[in-house]
Each structure stands twice: as C-alpha cells, then as structure tokens.
C-alpha cells in the first residue's frame, strides 16, 4: 500500500501554548483513519493543520507533513491543494454552508477545472445523485434541506474534484442516529468508488472501530496510542484508551453504574510537565511526572506510555 499522507513530529501552537505535540502518523491510500479523543484534545486542530487553515494565533512550529510527495508545511500554494486534492467536511453542515447561495452554486464554485457552465451543472447534479440526493437539490438553499441532506451536499462539495484525501471533522455528531449511519455507510462506500482516503475525527470510539482501518487516540495534544482498529478496541494498551473503552455503555449490564475516568482533562495552558495523562493514571510512577514518554512499538501498535519498555523500575 502506498503512503498518501505522512505526518512527522508536528508541533502546533504559539509562544504560550502547544496545541499539538509531536504528532506523527501515516495514512495509506484507500484507508480510513479515525482520530478519537475528548473535546479539546486537538482532533480538529490536527485536520486544520493538514489543510493549513489554523486560527491566526497558531502556527506549525516544527515537523513535516508529506502529502502525495509534497511537503506541505513549507508549501505556499495551498489553494491548489485545498478542495482539489484534500476535501473537508464539518460537524454542523447547517452553519458551514453559506445560507444565501443555492447548493448548486456552492458545489459548482468548488470545481477547479475551467469547463463550461452547462458541463459544470451536469457534473454537480451527477455527484449530488451519487450522494443519494435528488437533482432538485441543485436549486435549493441550505435551510430547505434536512441535516442529513445538508451533510450529503457538503460531501458532494468536497468530492467534486475527486480529491485523494477527505478530512471529516465529526460529520455525524449533529445528526440523529439513523441519518448518521446513512452518512457513515456513504463514506465507507466512497473509499472504493473514489479511491479515497479518509481521516475521520470522532469522539465515539465504537463508531471509529466500525468505520476505520486505523485508530489514533489523542489526549491533550498527544497521540497516546495508534494501531489497527480491532486491536486498539479489543486490547487497548495505553491506560487512557483502556479507561475510555471501559466507559462505553455496551460494556455494562442494565442498571450497572458506568465507570467514568476520574479527574479532568488538563487545560492546555497548564499542562503537567511529564505525561499529560499522569494525574489521572493509576499506574503513575515518578518518571511519568517528569518526562513525556516516547513512542514504543508493541503488538503492531505505537504507544506512548512508560508502562511498556523497561522504564517502570526507575
């Protein structure tokens, strides 16, 4: 399998805070990679880093991102890549679609090739149909569509140029369950149909297991564990992943009280010096408070925890 995206030791932040710390991962062609974690752990920021649309006060401080042979961090013609090679969809399609223009207009404007208006329209209607929408949607405004239809229109918009990579920022969070699964299945089908890779951000680890080949678990700007979905889900290694999976309702019998993770996510302005999860970790040792663990490869996975390797004695 060919590597499509290779993120190497990326650090994002400013003088005061680091939002992402030493993020490294790869996405192969036709692969779905999920990023899982609590709110504010940097999932969405990772996507914004890849497409280089970070908020004004943040920048990529170090690291490299290779996309299809191009190094993106120092690349200054992102307009050529955005929308053309990398598409993006969002959590709330209702606010991410411009309320004043028809769906047709908004999808059409994303087309990069210089072709005739009539041809553009045909292409838009074709892709809308592929997304399971009627051709009528071309003439409709966002507020006339349901949430699921809006998200489908959004996907059509992001795929109109046949991009190689789709960044999906919690695309199903704002939708009800049946609509959400419609969207999930659509995305899964698109992978083979469009030769597409997807980075799927969600906070639902069982959904991540269902949809993706690989799972990255993030905590406070660090990828604590990454590996094949089944392994991460059934046999988590990092204490945080273990606890996260332990919180899933399906693990409990009726009437049983769900165990939550004690403590709170540390604020990014006030991170512990060592492993960010150490204040909430039951395996905490002295070393965890002072050093951030590096990546250790075990059982096809990369884990950042001193529990593994030979650090625990010290």
């Amino acid at each position, binding site marked *: 399998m060919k590597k499509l995206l290779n993120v190497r030791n990326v650090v994002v932040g400013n003088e005061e805070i680091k939002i992402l710390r030493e993020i490294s991962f790869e996405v192969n062609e036709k692969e779905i990679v999920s990023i899982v974690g609590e709110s504010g752990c940097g999932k969405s920021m990772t996507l914004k880093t890849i*497409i280089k*649309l970070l908020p004004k006060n943040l920048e990529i401080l170090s690291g490299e991102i290779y996309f299809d042979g191009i190094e993106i961090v120092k690349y200054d013609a*992102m*307009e*050529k*890549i*955005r*929308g*053309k090679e990398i*598409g*993006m969809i*969002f959590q*709330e399609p209702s*606010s*991410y*679609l*411009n*309320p*004043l*223009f*028809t769906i047709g207009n908004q999808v059409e*404007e*994303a087309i*990069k090739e210089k072709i005739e208006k009539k041809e553009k329209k045909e292409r838009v209607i074709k892709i809308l149909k592929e997304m399971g929408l009627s051709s009528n949607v071309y003439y409709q*405004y966002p*507020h*006339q569509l349901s949430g699921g239809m809006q998200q489908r229109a*959004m996907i059509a*918009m*992001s795929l109109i140029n046949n991009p190689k990579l789709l960044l999906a920022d919690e695309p199903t969070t704002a939708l009800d369950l049946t609509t959400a699964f419609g969207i999930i299945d659509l995305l899964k089908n698109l992978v083979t149909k469009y030769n597409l890779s997807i980075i799927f951000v969600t906070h639902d680890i069982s959904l991540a297991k269902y949809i993706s080949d690989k799972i990255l678990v993030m905590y406070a700007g660090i990828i604590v564990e990454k590996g094949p979905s089944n392994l991460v889900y059934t046999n988590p290694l990092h204490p945080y992943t273990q606890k996260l999976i332990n919180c899933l309702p399906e693990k409990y019998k009726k009437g049983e009280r769900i165990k939550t993770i004690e403590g709170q996510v540390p604020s990014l302005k006030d991170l512990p010096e060592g492993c960010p999860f150490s204040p909430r970790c039951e395996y905490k040792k002295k070393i965890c408070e002072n050093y951030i663990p590096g990546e250790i490869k075990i059982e096809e996975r990369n884990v950042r925890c001193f529990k593994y390797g030979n650090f625990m004695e010290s």
Partner: protein
Amino acid sequence: MRRYILNRLFQFIPLLIGMTFISFLIIQISPGDYFTQLKMNPEISPETIENMRKLFGLDRPVIIQYFYWLKNIFTFNLGESFSYHVPVSFLIKVRLKNTIALSIFSILLTWIISIPLGIYGAIKDKSFNERVLSFFAYIGISLPSFFIAMLVIFFISKTAILPLGGTTSIFYENASGFEKFIDYLKHLLVPGIILTLSGIGSLYRLMKNNFLEALNSPYIFTACAKGIPTYKIYFKHALRNAINPMITIFGYELSGILSGAGLVEIITGWPGMGRLVLEGVLSFDLYLVMASLLIGGILLIFGNLLADILLALVDPRVRLR
C-alpha cells in the same frame, strides 16, 4: 411577491390614519394654539381673536377638526398655514425639494464612502491603517453634528472655497441651466459634507463589524477549505452576508430624509424643511406641522417596505416566509 407588496400597501392606509390621528390629538390637546400669542397684544380685541378662531375652524371639537383635515388630505389639500396665509403645499414645495436633495446627496455620499471603508477595515483588522480609521470613526461618532458643522463652517469661511448659506448665488438668475445646476450643487456641498461627516463614523463601524462577523463564520472556513480565490471569499461569501443587516438600516435612513438634516439645515442656513417645521412647531402652525408629519410617516413606511423588499431579494430565508 406582488401580492405581498399590494398587501403591505393596503396596510398603509389604516397605519397612516392612526399615526396622523395621534399626532393631531397630541398637538391639539397640548395647551395653547396659534392665537395664544395674539392674546398678549392689547391692540387685538378678544372678539377679533374669537372670530379668527372660528374662521380657522379651531373652535370645533378636536375630533371634528381632525376629520375635516383628513377629508382635505384625500383631495390632496394640505390646508393653509396660519402664519404665512398661503397653502401649506405651496410653502413646502421648494423647501421639500431642497431637503430631499440634501438628504439624498448626503446619504449616498455616506454609503459610498463608509461601505468600502468598512470592508477594508474588516479585512485589515488590527492593522495600523485599520486602527487609524477606527480612531477617526470614533471621533466622528463622539462629536455632535452641530459641532462638526461649526468646524466645517469655520474652515469654509476662512478659505472661502465654497459658498455658505442659501441655495443660489447672486448671478443665478442670469445663468444657463447647467450653470444653475452647478451653482446649486456648490451650495449643497457644505451642508452635505457636514451631514456625511457626522454619519460616516457609525456606518463604517457597523459595516466593519458585520463584515468581520461574516468573515469569522463557519461558511467562510468552508469556502477556504474549497480552495476558492480570496476575492471570491470576500466579495461573494462574506459581502453578501454582511450587507443583509445594512439593508434594514438603509430603510430607516430613508425615513430620516425629512427630519435627519434639520439641525444642520438651520446651522448652515440651508432653506429646507427643518427650519420651516421648527418655526411651525413653535408657533402652533397646525397644518404645516401636520403636513411634515404626514410626509415623514409616508417616508418611514416606504423606507421599511423598500428594506423588506430588498431583504427578500437578497436573503432566500426571508423570501420563503
């Protein structure tokens, strides 16, 4: 759409009747009338005043007076001015023209300047240029219009580059049509500039904030992620959304065509409605005041209708409701 407009136009009639009725009532039940001042004059006997009051119809009950006035309005008769003894329509014809010319001139100038400035300020937010612009906008908002008028008049009188006061120069009578127009425009310039200066600040800030808000909206992020050119992001996606709230404001500005310029008209000696109506109010010149209130009310209603129509044209969400 046409049905909607017709519907709205029909609603105007009861609205105008209600509005004028309340105004008429308030003017007439407040103590005193046009003849109160004449009573002070010992040379005029009370009988004469009583006769004149009968002549003008002011001895009848207020309600009856109102309906007589209303009946005349429907025959396009605005009544006669007490103090000038001429029909009100004759009195306000020229004044109305002057005021409308001044207001439209200053409104257009204000919008033409402040909308692009607002967009520029939003795009260059927090830059040096933006800070300078916002500083001056702040000063413009803080200074009352009469003070700006004083400053401008002082500057003009020192440099004498533009004529001050009135609408025409001495040579006006002998000038050709085009020269007459230019001369009128020159006289219009001083009050026009004053009104524009006092209006620019707040409009600039409104436009800037609207545009900034649009720029920070999620759909702008989408547009960026689509990789469309920057000018399209600004002038298609952001501008269309930022202009929406401005349309409502434009509607209100139209309603201020008559009254908005009053103070500046008086200070700069521009013979518009402002001064006439002020004198009318002070001397209880009933029909003159009522005429100006009527025209103001019609302008307000039309301004709102125009804003609603424009908004429906621009915003599909309004159109469907």
